[in-house]
């Protein structure tokens, strides 16, 4: 029999790799946030499993406490990220960073750059 901790630790390592791949390859900012969250929960799982491997009963309480604060902070960071993505989209009409655009991604609206420039000049906070 394989111990649960071993399995979920390996699963966490795989999630980190998977999330990293998605984070680099995806251009859509919201999908990057999702990938970022997958990396995060992979790290939590790996960490928690390391704390559960040699334990008598349950997962190490110190690891649990750190992971709980980590999960809540990850949500806070994600909420801020969503706010940034929405503000970016409001100013530019885009969901991708400009340097990520290639020939396949046409500008979204004709005349939009003008508006976005005006907006930026008028109100940098967007």
């Amino acid at each position, binding site marked *: 029999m394989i111990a649960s901790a071993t399995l979920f630790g390996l699963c966490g390592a795989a999630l980190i790799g998977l999330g990293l791949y998605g984070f680099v*390859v995806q251009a*859509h900012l919201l999908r990057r946030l999702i990938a970022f969250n997958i990396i995060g929960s992979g790290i939590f799982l790996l960490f928690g499993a390391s704390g*559960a491997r040699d334990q008598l009963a349950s997962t*190490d309480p110190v690891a649990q406490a750190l992971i*709980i604060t980590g999960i*809540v902070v990850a949500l806070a960071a994600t909420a801020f990220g969503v706010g940034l993505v929405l503000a970016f989209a409001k100013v530019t009409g885009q*969901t991708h960073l400009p340097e990520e655009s290639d020939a396949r991604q*046409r500008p979204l609206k004709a005349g939009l750059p003008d508006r976005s420039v005006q907006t930026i000049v008028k109100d940098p906070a967007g």
Partner: protein
Amino acid sequence: MSGLAATGFDLMLCALILGAALAAIAVRDLFGAVVFFIVYGVFVALAWLRLEAIDVALTEAALGAGLTGVLMIGAVSRLERLTSRDQDQDAAGPQSPPTSSAARIATMVGAAGIGGGLAWGFITLPPSAGLQLAVAENLAASGVENPVTAVLLNFRGWDTLLESIVLLAALIALWSLARDQDWGRRPGLRQHARPGGVMATFGRLLPPFGFLLGVYLVWTGSAQPGGAFQGGTVLAAVWLLVMMAGLKAAPRVSSTRLRWALIAGPLLFIGVGLAGAVAGTFLGLPTAYAKPLILTIEAGLTLSIAATLALLVLGAPMAGDGLGPDQPDKEPAR
């Protein structure tokens, strides 16, 4: 027999977690990716249960099933309204990655290398008893019986204090994204529902139960799995439901009562810490008064965590339906 069933379950759960994560990254439809991410949260909560980390599972379930879903679905909806939909670009999704296939393969190899390296490191990690024994030895002096709560509020009180301030900082950062003329307005879209309809009825029916569960989790957290974070997350979700059902508008960000709710937890925590500093060490809780002090801090923290998380999900203060910079400044009468 029991071992076989458990290992089978674990293997299946790992496959589902990895499948959900892979699908969230690879599915063509943006909304599909968000749904896969919500489902992923449910599976990860199950994994925490299998690791017998019930406290973590509670937090993950409340965040994954409740707040993250609301946050992400709302984000998709608002994003689609902000960007033009004439092009097939978003329907085709992120699937038009800016990278060439060679770069993708290189990324894949690199990511697999990092994941594999971590896995190898995990397997070859030397055995260690960790801190479980140290916690168990000092549990009697902490004032509570749940070791996780003891670590969060007593042994590593610094971490939790700073964490509650980090949450506040995230909220301030989010609010700072608002335009100047929107400052002092209500955060997020104006929510409304048909009065007496199914959604409004649900919004009236559920909160009493949710409130009970949230308070129960905080109260029971001193002896059993639960605590300020778990209970606060549930209460945040309940408050969000009341607002989404159109029963109560979100408070204005300039509201004094809201500000007090947001800082109550950190303030109480610092106050108790300073009292400890007078007696000896900052954040040192004397064993005799540890339990009432911890419960006091937890009560304040629960309030602040619930308010902060709900407001983080709502978003920056904005006018009207927040569609763009051309919105009129007056708030629509609803």
